[in-house]
């Protein structure tokens, strides 16, 4: 491969479809993502016959920085896609991944990303069965974008949906919120993240545990972009109710609070990448927490709130002082405040 100083980098030739492209696929991607479907490098992967309905999702990954404590864009792409299937009520069958590489990207970094994707796929027991690479000229991309699709088999009893929500239903989160968003914000702003790591990980075991405990959720989401408040506000608007969160019961790490205090951000608007929020029938919240909490992914799970009649805002936070703070879907990306 071409050399730029001491390090191998992506050149436009890697996107030509010729020998360099082939080398890239065989030397960088296949060692980590190999499986019978992918290895034949066909134009379309054949999937096994499946009983029942299919679910499909797609997602794009453009995170900056691409590598962060607890993960990178590669494992994020796998977990993000698998998690969308999982909260959509499906068990993942197969994934695709397309890579848009910017000329000049370090191939060593790409190898790390591919290795991270391979490890994440193994952890989720799913294969990347087809893929694509494209190279854009320097300046026409931000290093590396990954676009995925995922196909899954729908459970026989997927979440019943916002229209089935009842007053008194309980809102359960599977662990502390805002870890991923806080670490990205800290890194972008030159703060030392200390011991904080991204929560980037699979939520499928959590969903399995919920069903395993005999709980059929009304609603499941992974609170990624926009965080817990946004996901619950969207849900509440659709269901015509208000979600009341109790501040004292919403798990947030001290380190995340500290980053938020310093940067003027709100942890309820920060992304999670390995958490699930479930609305379950009233009285089943504690059982859901118990099902989550036996898993390493569910450490810190809590019943964070409940469904109440529609009031002024779709999400109301009952503060630990007895006041109420209302949340709605945010207008734009979180912007730091001045003073």
């Amino acid at each position: 491969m071409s050399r730029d100083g001491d390090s191998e980098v992506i050149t436009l030739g890697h996107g030509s479809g010729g020998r360099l492209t082939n080398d890239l696929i065989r030397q960088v991607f296949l060692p980590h993502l190999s499986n019978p479907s992918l290895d034949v490098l066909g134009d379309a992967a054949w999937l096994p016959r499946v009983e029942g309905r299919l679910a499909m999702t797609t997602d794009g990954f453009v995170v900056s920085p691409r590598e962060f404590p607890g993960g990178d864009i590669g494992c994020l792409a796998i977990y993000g896609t698998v998690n969308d299937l999982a909260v959509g009520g499906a068990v993942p069958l197969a994934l695709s991944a397309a890579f848009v590489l910017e000329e000049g990207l370090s191939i060593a970094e790409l190898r790390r990303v591919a290795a991270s994707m391979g490890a994440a796929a193994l952890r989720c027991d799913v294969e990347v069965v087809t893929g694509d690479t494209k190279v854009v000229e320097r300046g026409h991309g931000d290093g590396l974008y990954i676009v995925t699709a995922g196909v899954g088999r729908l459970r026989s009893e997927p979440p019943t949906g916002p229209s089935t929500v009842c007053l008194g239903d309980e809102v359960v989160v599977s662990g502390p919120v805002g870890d991923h968003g806080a670490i990205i914000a800290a890194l972008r702003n030159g703060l030392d993240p200390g011991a904080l790591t991204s929560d980037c990980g699979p939520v499928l075991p959590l969903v399995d545990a919920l069903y395993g405990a005999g709980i059929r959720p009304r609603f499941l989401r992974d609170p990624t972009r926009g965080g817990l408040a946004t996901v619950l506000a969207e849900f509440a608007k659709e269901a015509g109710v208000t979600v009341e969160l109790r501040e004292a019961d919403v798990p947030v790490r001290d380190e995340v609070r500290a980053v938020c205090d310093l940067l003027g951000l709100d942890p309820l608007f920060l992304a999670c990448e390995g958490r699930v929020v479930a609305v379950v029938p009233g009285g089943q919240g504690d059982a859901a927490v118990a099902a989550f909490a036996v898993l390493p992914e569910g450490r810190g799970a809590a019943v964070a709130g409940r469904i109440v009649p529609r009031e002024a805002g779709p999400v109301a936070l009952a503060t630990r002082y007895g006041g109420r703070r209302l949340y709605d879907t945010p207008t734009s990306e979180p912007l730091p405040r001045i003073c």
Partner: protein
Amino acid sequence: MRDDLAVFRDVGRVHALAEAIARLDPGRPVRLMHVCGTHENALCQFGLRDLLPAWLGLVAGPGCPVCVCPASDLDLAARLAMDPRVVLATFGDVVRVPARTSLAAVRARGADVRIVYGASDAVALARALPAREVVFFAVGFETTACTTAAALQADPPANFSVLCSHRLVPPALDALLGLPGVAPEGFLLPGHVITVTGLSAYRDLASRRPIAMAVGGFEPVDLLLALKDLVEQVADGRPRVGNDYPRAVRDGGNPAAIAAIAQVFEARDAAWRGIGTIPASGLGLRAAFAGRDAAARFGLVPDPEVPDTTPGCRCGDVLLGRLEPEACPLFGSGCTPDVPVGPCMVAFEGTCAARYRHRRL
């Protein structure tokens, strides 16, 4: 650090203070005003207004720095940002504030607008981009003005300049007290600003226009201590300037910060959005720093055609506490957080945005 803060977030202490305030009931409504975006943010964040008795009203005055920034300055910033030589660096909450256009809108059209946490970040940007011209759009009160001053004193690179829109708090309070039907019975004074400036300007104001004043910090206990102080002052009819944030605020302020502001800036008459010009309420660069004036460097002058507010927008009256947001004809129909017409609808803690979130459906 966080253990120290825990004392000021103690639920039992907060409730005890709220009850103590409730016991001071004078048997009539009392209207207080804060003049600080961070106070509004803290009040919302902790839900403290719900703990106050019904007779005690606490309104937001002209204390949100991006809300009071005149449209002509925002327009200058947008025009500077459109200059291909320029990287415009500013605070995050300025970006979406609407004027003839907004910085977010010009950024989408290709302008290089960067969000920074302060003047020193903008200087670092100028060092990192020696071939570009970095303009720091400097808004905010004395709290941010001293950091702009410090950055200018520290001999920043030649490609660094400032579009200066800093404002001063005491002249605004003074002007507000002169307006009929506006004055509250007491001011909750901004703890960050007064950490910088000290109390002398407020003592001077109190000697001319007696009114209850108390400096408040930003944790729940800090805020309620200051409110209790204000209600006591109102109840006993003896206004004074209370310092209820003594762990940060010294009588004499921060001498180094005061000196920096005095060396770099001079007070000038300045426009406040929707309110008008207030004498000696803005900061301009002194002659020794005139070379750092971005408007002069790029030959731009404020465009007199830029309307300060959109017709129908009553943000000025809202900022003075003269109008309830719901009484503005645009509220909730022509002006929402998604499509803000006036500045008060932009920030999370903007008075109109907060009311919009809390509206009854």
